[in-house]
């Protein structure tokens, strides 16, 4: 299979403009003859559904939550980047492009990333016009802050709830279209499969989560905005029900899954408190500006942190990275936390945590100053842990929170299946091997508001107005497959609950395919995952029926796909014999313990094809071509 990214030729800055001009337009009067299905209504899906409807297309949108306002985009705290250069600090579209490419460790497409930087400014305008209450200066202009180590202040924010406000903006635009009858919004409805007719995506099969009813919906195109797959790790900062089923089902139908091993693990999260932990909560990494990270030098030290004298504290980041100290990038901070805990130096109940200590900052700057900077974060921490960070060190541990990998898409955001699109975190396109802070919201909205509304027209103009009815044999076949799949799950009368198996999967993934990976560990993980797949097939326990609200069944069905996806992640991680961004292979590091890329052999996106014969997945490589930036190796010593 030849992968064509369809990146337009020509100078970088003109690619998108030229491409837009080249796209065939759909006659306004004919737009109402096209139906589009949008699955997922977060930033990407919600924005896309609203924008399609404004253009005149008929939209059916689906979300498994009780309202599109609940999508997990809502939980993003920090902000959204844009190259507005309002603070006049030298920012530009090119600089945002460059930072994103570099931040992604040179594993993203130049063309896509430049387009992202270009439309970033439109996003801010659009959201402000919708009434998103961005933070303002006293004079009434928009406020900016620097975020995630960027050297310019380009992050726009709405208190600590930027994701919420942007999502509510998209939700309001969507609501407006629902009231106009241009969008049919199916809530509490989960997509179970993509339906292909004559090689094109023509619809989906869904399950109504309340009645359990299996239904089909046909359309001219299907757009997946279904988010990432961090929940493969069980414990992550993702919402409980975030899942990979839509993407994985598309993958099984032939869509390539690209770079599944690129996952981001955020260093400053509140650690697990015990075995019943359900998810992890992220705290802003700005905490590392003043907090000092340490563990006791003595393994198994049970003294209270404040009783441990200075010379018995191991400030491992400061010792290993004297220049950057506690401010090393996310992946370095996360990886080193894992190493010290692996060495038995971890603290807390589970021994999987390190201290983040503000004692010295309070001594230096006073409690008042520290409270001004981090008061709300300290309160949040206190509420969750019942420990007062002003008095005792915080405990932190890394947690998976974003997946850069996803369905392979071309410049038009279409997968290799005609008519099937993937947007937002669900695709792989813009962040390379590592995502910069405040870029996830940007990408979701860029795809939804400003890219796919144009690019989808290019496909639709070439299709017939007629679509197969849901009585078409392919739909019936897909429905029956879904029913059979659920039936099989419901008949599982083993002893292990879906959560038990999922927790076990998460442990393996976090341990062997998380912050740090090696060949041996990955081989072990693959074997272990296969065992878990077998366990799932033979010893799962599900109660209730299929035609009712059945949470256990939902979990089991999602887990089935996570178990397969996990294996592909491991295969991809094993195959990529280099370290880059969020993918750190212990075999490939510099003498200083830094990630070592292999640009000669691995400057490509790994797009995997599902192998229905049960054998290994098939790798397709899309070479990444860098015409504008020079690839460099980073160092934080």
């Amino acid at each position, binding site marked *: 299979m030849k992968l064509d990214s369809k990146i337009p030729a020509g100078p970088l800055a003109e690619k998108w403009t030229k491409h837009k001009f080249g796209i065939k337009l759909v006659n306004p009067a004919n737009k109402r003859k096209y139906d589009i299905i949008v699955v997922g209504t977060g930033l990407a899906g919600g924005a896309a559904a609203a924008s399609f409807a404004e253009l005149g297309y008929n939209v059916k949108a689906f979300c498994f939550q009780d309202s599109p306002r609940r999508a997990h985009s809502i939980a993003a705290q920090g902000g959204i980047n844009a190259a507005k250069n309002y603070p006049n600090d030298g920012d530009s579209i090119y600089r945002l492009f460059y930072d994103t490419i570099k931040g992604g460790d040179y594993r993203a497409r130049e063309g896509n990333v430049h387009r992202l930087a270009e439309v970033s400014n439109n996003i801010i305008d659009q959201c402000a016009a919708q009434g998103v209450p*961005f933070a303002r200066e006293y*004079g009434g202009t928009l406020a900016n802050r620097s975020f995630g180590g960027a050297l310019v202040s380009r992050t726009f924010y709405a208190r600590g709830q930027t994701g919420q406000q942007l999502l509510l903006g998209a939700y309001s635009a969507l*609501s407006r279209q629902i009231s106009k009858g241009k969008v049919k919004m199916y809530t509490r409805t989960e997509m179970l499969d993509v339906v292909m007719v004559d090689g094109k995506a023509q619809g989906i099969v869904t399950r109504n989560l309340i009645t359990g009813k299996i239904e089909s919906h046909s359309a001219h195109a299907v757009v997946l905005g279904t988010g990432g797959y961090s929940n493969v790790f069980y414990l992550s900062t993702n919402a409980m029900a975030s899942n990979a089923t839509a993407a994985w089902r598309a993958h099984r139908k032939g869509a390539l899954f690209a770079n599944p091993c690129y996952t981001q693990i955020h260093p400053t999260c509140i650690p697990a408190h015990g075995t019943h932990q359900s998810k992890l909560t992220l705290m802003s990494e700005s905490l590392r500006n003043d907090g000092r990270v340490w563990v006791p030098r003595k393994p198994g030290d049970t003294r209270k942190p404040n009783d441990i004298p200075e010379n018995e504290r191991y400030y491992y980041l400061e010792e290993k990275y004297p220049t950057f100290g506690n401010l090393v990038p996310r992946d370095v901070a996360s990886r080193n936390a894992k190493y010290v805990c692996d060495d038995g130096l971890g603290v807390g109940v589970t021994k999987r945590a390190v201290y983040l200590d503000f004692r010295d900052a309070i001594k230096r700057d006073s409690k008042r100053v520290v409270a001004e900077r981090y008061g709300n974060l300290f309160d949040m921490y206190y509420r969750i842990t019942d420990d007062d960070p002003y008095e005792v060190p915080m405990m932190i541990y890394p947690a998976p929170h974003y997946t850069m990998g996803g369905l392979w898409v071309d410049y038009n955001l279409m997968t290799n299946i005609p008519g099937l699109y993937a947007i937002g975190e669900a695709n792989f396109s813009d962040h390379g091997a590592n995502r910069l802070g405040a870029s996830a919201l940007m990408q979701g909205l860029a795809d939804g508001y400003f890219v796919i509304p144009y690019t989808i027209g290019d496909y639709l103009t070439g299709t017939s107005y007629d679509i197969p009815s849901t009585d078409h044999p392919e739909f019936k076949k897909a429905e029956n497959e879904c029913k059979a799949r659920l039936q099989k799950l419901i008949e599982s009368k083993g002893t292990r609950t879906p959560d038990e198996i999922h927790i076990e999967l998460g442990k393996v993934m976090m341990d062997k395919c998380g912050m740090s990976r090696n060949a041996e560990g990955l081989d072990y993980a693959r074997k272990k995952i296969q065992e878990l797949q077998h366990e799932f097939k033979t010893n799962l326990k599900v109660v209730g029926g299929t035609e009712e609200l059945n949470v256990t069944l939902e979990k089991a069905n999602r887990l089935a796909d996570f178990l397969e996806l996990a294996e592909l992640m491991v295969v991809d991680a094993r195959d990529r014999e280099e370290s880059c961004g969020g993918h750190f292979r212990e075999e490939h590091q510099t003498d200083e313990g830094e990630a070592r890329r292999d640009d000669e052999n691995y400057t490509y996106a790994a797009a995997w094809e599902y192998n229905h014969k049960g054998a290994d997945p098939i790798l397709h490589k899309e070479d990444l071509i860098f015409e504008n930036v020079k690839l460099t190796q980073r160092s934080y010593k």
Partner: protein
Amino acid sequence: MSAETRNYTLKVWRQSGSSAKGEIKTYEMKNVSVGASFLEMFDQLNEQLLANGEDPVAFDHDCREGICGMCSMYINGRPHGPDTGITTCQLHMRTFPDGETIYVEPWRAKPFPVIKDLTVDRGAFDRIIQAGGYVSVNTGNAQDANEILIPKAIADEAMDAAACIGCGACVAACKNASAMLFVSAKVSQLAVLPQGKSESSRRAQNMLAQMDSEGFGACTNTGACSSECPKEISLTHIARLNREYLRNRFTLNDVEEFQPIKKPDYLDFGV
């Protein structure tokens, strides 16, 4: 963080479906970690039920960090439990003394019918937003964001209102099951911002008409909504809604009435 555990007696509302008759059922919970969140305690209960082959308790939840607005339990007589300014997922078991009996019920309001156990249908909130909770701007038409100057105080006030997570605790707490705080938060956010002003006349009356048609009660200013709101949204927004409504009903040169939005057939799950 402590490994201390406690035991509880749970009295949980169980209702197998929307038309079924519900009842309070009692469950004994042993060894609940004090560091667990209230929902993690429910996870534990569900694993226990599942192990015994019983139907787990259906309850809404998702982000588990207090922002998605999905979780919705009426705990010991109060929405989101005894603490203030938090959602159920942010409530921790250390709040409850060892041996305590804890009542857990769904939101109770006619417009929020129970779907199953503790899960209710809050589609009415979506329809209220659809009735006018937006600024009518299409994608791609916006002027430069800095061309609309908004004083910080106004932006902050809008943000205070916009913080609403749509959980429905206000309705659950209100003795009249009124949705005024929810409606007013959106009306207020868009009424103070210049972007939303041009439509504010219609917005207030349409959203209120939708609220009334859904069957929510009227506001009697008890303040229960604001006290229980996880985002502590102020009653002043209700005053602004009243003001907007009054002004517009008596001055707007238009007598055409808004037709309330009906629940679409495809969302009619028999609840």
